[in-house]
């Protein structure tokens, strides 16, 4: 018996243009947050994302909800913003946050002047802190180096950026927002100083979509410059690449920051059952094709181990890299000293009256960025409805919860349904999770693919990195009618390739053994590498 799955889509017909009040370009934290903010004000929006949710910097960061202490030396305004937004989000979106607190620690050899100034700088920004005896700090966090010379406790927290964006989008969709996944802007048609129509294209199917919107918001993050250029505008974007590593096990209870001016590999953020170590800051010419490298991985481990020595020998399961969209002018202070404050640009002053860009900023302040953008949009549309995202809690949805490490096993054990097979055995993701995710996905676009299901769950994120669960999930997606025709094999290849990009710089010791097995299964056994070349023998 194969229960038929709802594949009917609430998707626009390709025949006519889609009319909306606001077109939002970019499905990161800002874009999804803006969609929710505007939807709560009663506006109709279309959110177009060229890949999938959090495909840029929103999905490639530490998942750190800053207390603000990180920025006390470099940017007091950003520090204060972080403090305020952090407190607000802990109250209104607690299901996306683990309020575990954080430590700033220094080890022998670190800059003593910076250590001495730190409490004063925190006080100046109104950021709560508490000095800890180093012995106490090591009792609280036994993984810390024995060479600790100073420790402060702050109110850092971990935040799941995927869950956050999924929940923001979920409420926006519920209020009528249309989400177009895999849909890129192709061109703006500008007449009389207005973007009259926006031509978009589905990158999977090639289908063209036209949107007529009263207002167009460019929330494309690191790609904001490219979008602006399509409207004939020039933005000066700086692309700063950051690489991060995910450990197999959680190493600390709290967020651990190195107490020194921001540099490489100085933050370790726990999240569920894993920890995330990073990052680097390397200027790159473009935000596309960003990959972690072997040299960056080695640098991060060597640096991080000074603070948490077990990093030298722990098992890593994934590396990833993102590009911080920094907005500003050329300067000499290095990219870390560029303001992490955001830029809200009203392009009416550049001759395009219904076009706005929101970029820069950071995950912790995404809501504020969305609020300020929505205020401008509402003003232009003559709508007086106030922002509600600073008052209303973010609703919790069932299908958005599967990204949390360690959650699926708990739910599965609690439900104890013998027919609800585990498809992923590393992170214990059951059939029911896949069904819940695919049902929601089918509302968002025409294609439901393995990679999109994996993005919304822990599938492929355990030690086997998808070697086994990919096959089982694909089989189940066929059984419930979500996959059809011969698309399973190319999807499997895409999924494994996506996993591979985060694996190959980390392959030594056990992960290399695991990758040997993965290649043995998929290349030597299943021959998926040959399948694309087998058209002739038929």
């Amino acid at each position, binding site marked *: 018996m194969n229960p038929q799955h709802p594949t009917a889509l609430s998707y626009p017909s390709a025949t006519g243009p889609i009319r909306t009040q606001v077109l939002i370009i970019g499905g990161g934290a800002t874009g999804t947050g803006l969609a929710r903010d505007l939807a709560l004000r009663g506006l109709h929006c279309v959110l177009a994302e060229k890949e999938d949710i959090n495909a840029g910097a929103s999905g490639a960061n530490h998942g750190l909800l800053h207390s603000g202490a990180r920025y006390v030396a470099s940017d007091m305004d950003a520090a204060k913003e972080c403090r305020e937004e952090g407190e607000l989000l802990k109250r209104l979106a607690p299901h996306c946050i683990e309020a575990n607190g954080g430590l700033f620690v220094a080890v022998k050899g670190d800059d003593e002047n910076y250590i001495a100034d730190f409490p004063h700088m925190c006080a100046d920004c109104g950021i709560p802190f508490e000095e800890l005896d180093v012995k106490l700090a090591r009792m609280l966090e036994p993984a810390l180096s024995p060479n600790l010379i100073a420790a402060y406790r702050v109110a850092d927290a971990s935040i799941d950026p995927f869950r956050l964006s999924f929940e923001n989008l979920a409420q926006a969709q519920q209020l009528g927002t249309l989400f177009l996944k895999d849909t890129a802007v192709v061109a703006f048609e500008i007449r009389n100083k207005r973007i009259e129509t926006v031509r978009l294209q589905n990158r999977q199917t090639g289908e063209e979509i036209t949107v007529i919107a009263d207002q167009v918001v460019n929330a494309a993050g690191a790609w904001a410059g490219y979008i602006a250029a399509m409207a004939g505008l020039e933005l000066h974007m700086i692309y700063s690449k950051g690489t991060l590593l995910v450990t197999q096990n959680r190493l600390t209870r709290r967020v651990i920051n190195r107490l020194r001016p921001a540099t490489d590999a100085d933050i370790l953020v726990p999240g569920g059952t894993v920890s995330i170590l990073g990052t680097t800051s390397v200027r790159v010419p473009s935000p596309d094709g960003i990959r972690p490298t072997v040299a960056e991985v080695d640098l991060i481990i060597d640096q991080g181990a000074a603070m948490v020595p077990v990093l030298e020998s722990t098992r890593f399961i994934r590396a990833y890299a993102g590009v911080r969209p920094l907005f500003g002018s050329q300067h000499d202070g290095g990219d870390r000293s560029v303001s992490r404050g955001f830029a809200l640009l009203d392009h009416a002053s550049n001759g395009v009256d219904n076009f706005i860009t929101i970029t820069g900023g950071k995950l912790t302040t995404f809501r504020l960025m969305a609020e300020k953008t929505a205020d401008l949009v509402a003003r232009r549309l003559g709508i007086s409805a106030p922002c509600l995202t600073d008052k209303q809690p973010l609703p919790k949805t069932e299908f958005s919860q599967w990204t949390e490490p360690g959650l699926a096993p708990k739910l599965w054990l609690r439900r104890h349904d013998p027919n609800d*097979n585990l498809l992923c055995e590393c992170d214990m993701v059951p059939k029911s999770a896949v069904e819940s995710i695919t049902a929601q996905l089918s509302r968002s676009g025409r294609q439901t693919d393995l990679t999109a299901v994996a993005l919304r769950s822990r599938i492929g994120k355990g030690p086997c990195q998808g070697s086994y669960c990919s096959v089982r999930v694909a089989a189940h997606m066929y059984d419930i009618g979500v996959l059809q025709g011969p698309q399973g094999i190319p999807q499997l290849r895409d999924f494994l390739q996506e996993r591979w*990009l985060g694996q190959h710089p980390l392959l030594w010791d056990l992960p290399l053994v695991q990758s040997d097995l993965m290649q043995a299964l998929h*290349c030597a056994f299943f*021959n998926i590498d040959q399948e694309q070349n087998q058209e002739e023998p038929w």
Partner: protein
Amino acid sequence: MEAGRIHCDLLVIGAGMAGASAALFAAKRGLKTVLVGSTAGLQFAGGMLDLLGVQAPNTANIPALRPWEAMAALIQEQPLHPYARIPLQEIRRAFVEFTELLASAGLSYYCEPENNLQIITSLGTRKTTYLVPKSMQSNAAALAQKPPCLLVDFEGLKGFSARQISATLGKHWPGLRHASISLNGAVHKSYPQPLAWELENQAVRAVLVKALRKQLQGEEVIGLPAVLGLASAGQVQAELEKELGLKVFEIPMLPPSMPGLRLKETMEKLFVNLGIQTLLQRQVQKVARSEGDGFTAYIGPDEPLTMVRARGILLASGRFFGKGLHATRKGILETIFNLPVYQPENRALWHHEDLLHSQGHPINRAGLETDENFRPLNSDGNAAFPNLFAAGTILAHNDWMHLKCGSGLSLATAYAAVNAFVQTRSNAFG
């Protein structure tokens, strides 16, 4: 002579395809043979025996239908590949001798000597291989001829969807249909091994036959997940075919698989039949030279260690999965003798960014370099020891996953290395 020591002619380290077959070849040649290592890896072989699955290593990933012709291209493009060291006739003999041994212990294989076979896998891919278990003979025939065919899956069995296979292959195979069957009466349904065990039970098989009859619409052949029994696999299949009056075949699925398990158990039976002394699931802790040219190996991990005094050692400890090689952030080491390992210059060169890169990953050609007698080299480029041989995937210059030559590489080099050892022995005593 000390008590508690085992004395032998040849100690084989590693009980994967290369080590296990080397022990069989050695015992057959009258050598007193000891085999140490884990046979668990054999299950991952999936049960099919590959010879060479790509037309040529540098022309993308095109399947080879004529493997012996592809061999010529391989040897020309990769003259350091271990296959290049072995006359083709010897490689054929290795396969013949090995499959005859398996048949003598009740496990039959099928091949077309000059051709590769292509079979359907559970993913709907077509796997190119050389020898298949008898239970997959009709799989290859069905894929080649595409008669009306019913693919069936069992409800609850993970990672096997008949719908997936027929959706993937259906465009080119109009007579392909799929169905899903609930095996009432079977308790353990999620994994192949318990399910195979259930199907050894006559009552469960009767349920299956009845359910299959209900689904048939004039098909000539039925494909089922490779779970048709364990020890009495041949019987289970024969009985289904007789009851239904048509051909039934197995479709291999994600390892550890039943065909792999059957291969493992048959080889373990042969170890007994041929008088091989086994120290399975145990590991070599260290090896020392002893007087003469021999070795003394200390086998653990538990104390007291077993001491094996051997005239020669055949090292078939595998690559990373087999723990014959170990990778650190700084480089790759051989784990037992600390032999030099041929490897890319640094870690950044180990892998391509493209998982399915048409050239394969450079690290997959790392391993031990040997002389013409399969003796690993020391850093001077000479045989490290006169009586230490190596076989299987630990050898350098073979990317078996990319070339789809794993089993053949293991069998052929095991065969050649054992013969080389016999030769050196007869030279020494001749």
